[in-house]
């Protein structure tokens, strides 16, 4: 297992390197991205632009620029082009809010998806299943920005049941923290509840036809024991895989829309602003942050997978 994890960690570094190079190159080829021209202002003369370029080191060859940028990211010295604020600090400040949003949403989506998926599969073809199928399709079809806006308009603005946005740190006031995050959690979770409950349903229906489920029945287990111990447990294997990937993706950027609409001061909001102003340093840092989480959760999933499916363990130790 140790070797397996070490191997994955090395792979992780490689992936992060590749991603950083790609983002850096993309930024350098898209039009209107010349930061010097933006910083120098509308009526800047050539001399001013040249000076800004010089200041920011933008006259250096690209590989040198890349190395400087990466060095600054990892030593915490990177500052934004547009605001002069330290990028690493900004991201660190945003992490609690983003994590609160993502973890809360993830708990909600997994809990509801498992309950709905389980009920759908057990009552497959029945009224409850049909109802849950329709609900799931609705959930999958609702765009996040639309759902967020609708929830905000009706529940916060019209009925004033919830705050209109913002974030209260957990350490400051746990009740307010949850109260402020409830709508964002739901917004972010709805899509995944729909998707995951459908997935669990079909996965369970597949597993129900397995020979070992028949064995479990022949042993004299109750239907409930058969379903939870033998069907559900085996059906969760693909779900857990997907969950790891999706959770990493949500932390690493999927929450941008939700954070923006609900004005949550997280990494996503920061990323959104950086994209809006084509600010390379924060963009690079946020991308690395996101990529790091996606790769990290991929690795965690692989390890968890080995726990869920013992057959994998043999393969991994043999590598």
């Amino acid at each position, binding site marked *: 297992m140790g070797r397996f994890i070490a191997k994955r960690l090395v792979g992780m570094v490689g992936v992060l390197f590749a991603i950083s190079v790609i983002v850096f190159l993309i930024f350098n080829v898209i039009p209107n991205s010349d930061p010097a021209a933006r910083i120098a202002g509308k009526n800047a003369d050539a001399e001013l632009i040249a000076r800004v370029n010089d200041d920011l080191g933008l006259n250096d060859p690209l590989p040198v620029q890349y190395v400087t940028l990466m060095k600054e990211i990892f030593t915490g010295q990177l500052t934004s082009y547009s605001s002069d604020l330290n990028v690493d600090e900004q991201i660190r400040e945003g992490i609690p809010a983003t994590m609160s949003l993502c973890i809360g949403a993830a708990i909600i989506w997994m809990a509801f998806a498992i309950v709905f998926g389980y009920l759908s599969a057990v009552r497959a*073809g029945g009224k409850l299943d049909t109802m849950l199928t329709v609900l799931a399709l609705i959930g999958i079809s609702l765009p996040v920005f639309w759902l967020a806006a609708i929830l905000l308009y009706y529940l916060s603005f019209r009925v004033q049941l919830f705050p209109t946005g913002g974030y209260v740190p957990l350490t400051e006031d746990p009740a307010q923290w949850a109260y402020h995050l409830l709508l964002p959690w739901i917004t972010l979770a709805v899509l995944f509840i729909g998707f995951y409950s459908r997935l669990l349903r079909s996965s369970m229906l597949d597993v129900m036809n*397995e*020979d*070992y489920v*028949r*064995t*479990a*029945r*022949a*042993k*004299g*287990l*109750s*239907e409930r*024991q058969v379903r939870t*111990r*033998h069907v559900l*447990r*085996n059906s969760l*294997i693909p779900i857990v895989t997907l969950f790891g990937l999706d959770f990493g993706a949500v932390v690493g950027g999927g929450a941008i829309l939700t954070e923006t609409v609900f004005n949550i001061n997280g990494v996503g909001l920061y990323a959104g602003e950086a994209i809006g102003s084509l600010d390379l340093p924060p963009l690079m840092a946020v991308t690395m942050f996101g990529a790091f989480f996606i790769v990290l959760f991929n690795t965690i999933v692989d390890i968890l997978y080995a726990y*869920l*499916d*013992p*057959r994998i363990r*043999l393969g991994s130790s043999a590598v």
Partner: protein
Amino acid sequence: MSPRATASGPLLSVKDLEVGFATEDGLLKAVDGVSFELARGEVLGIVGESGCGKSVTAQTVMGLTRSSNARISGSVEFNGADLIEASDDDLRKVRGESIAMIFQDPMTSLNPVYKVGKQIAEQILAHRDVSDKEARDRAIELLRDVGIPHPERRIDDYPYEYSGGMRQRAMVAMALSLEPEVLIADEPTTALDVTIQAQILTLIEQLNRDRDLAVVLITHDLGVVAEVADRVQVMYAGQVVERGTLDEIFYDPQHPYTWGLLGSLTRLDRPRPKRLPQIAGQPPSLLSPPGGCRFRPRCPHAFEQCAELPSLEGRLGKRSEHADRCWLQPKEKESRRSVDGRIGLGAPAA
């Protein structure tokens, strides 16, 4: 062989069992009026080719075919209690406790994500009020009984760490964990290679002898039946076409389908035929079985009367349970089933 029926009547009695499945193409009648009785300590072989309804019969005995699209009628009585009408909970108590089952493919019959010992202990815990430790100790004992080496270590292995033969032994251990009265073995050796097959059969035979375990052995392999069965029931297209003692079926078979099965056995003590004998054609669709005798389309001996379905009855005029579904006269059968000095399906009379 083992002792026969006791005075208390049969342990397991199946009468006129019919099992159909509603499909998009109509009702598929997998089992059409099957009856048999099983006495304590007896081994009954049920033989037939794939799709003849033998597995469905076995699974229906344990209520494993219950589903919204299954249509089940007839009766299954175990120790006098009906299992067809039994509530799910009553049926649950019989499963594993009184009637246990082992399946064809040991590779897929164990849950891959749980340790073998845990899966055996699970069955004990489902029926008995014992501690986890006691269930585990019992599981080790059972694994030792069925011949798993170092059971105290192998109990913590996952199924993938067992070979095919070991998995089937583990299945047998699981089936025996509560000392059931009936073991239903559904093609227990089909997925195993020949040496392992013999070991598993010997194991079943031993259990039958030592524990007075009644066994329903389902197989397509007459060689397997010949080794362990007391009585044999031959099935074709959802119906029983012949039943009798092992000797009656092997030495005095009455139904052409049985002749065909016997004829397609290869024997080491005879010269090898140029071409292995077979029964021409395919078994009929169970969605719309042929009228009359179901074997008629493949039978070289069919005549006009075969358009009418013969009932399963004794046709030899002797006091025996030997019964079959064939209109031919017993004398006629004797001459027709003889092919090159041994039993075979033969060709139509000239």
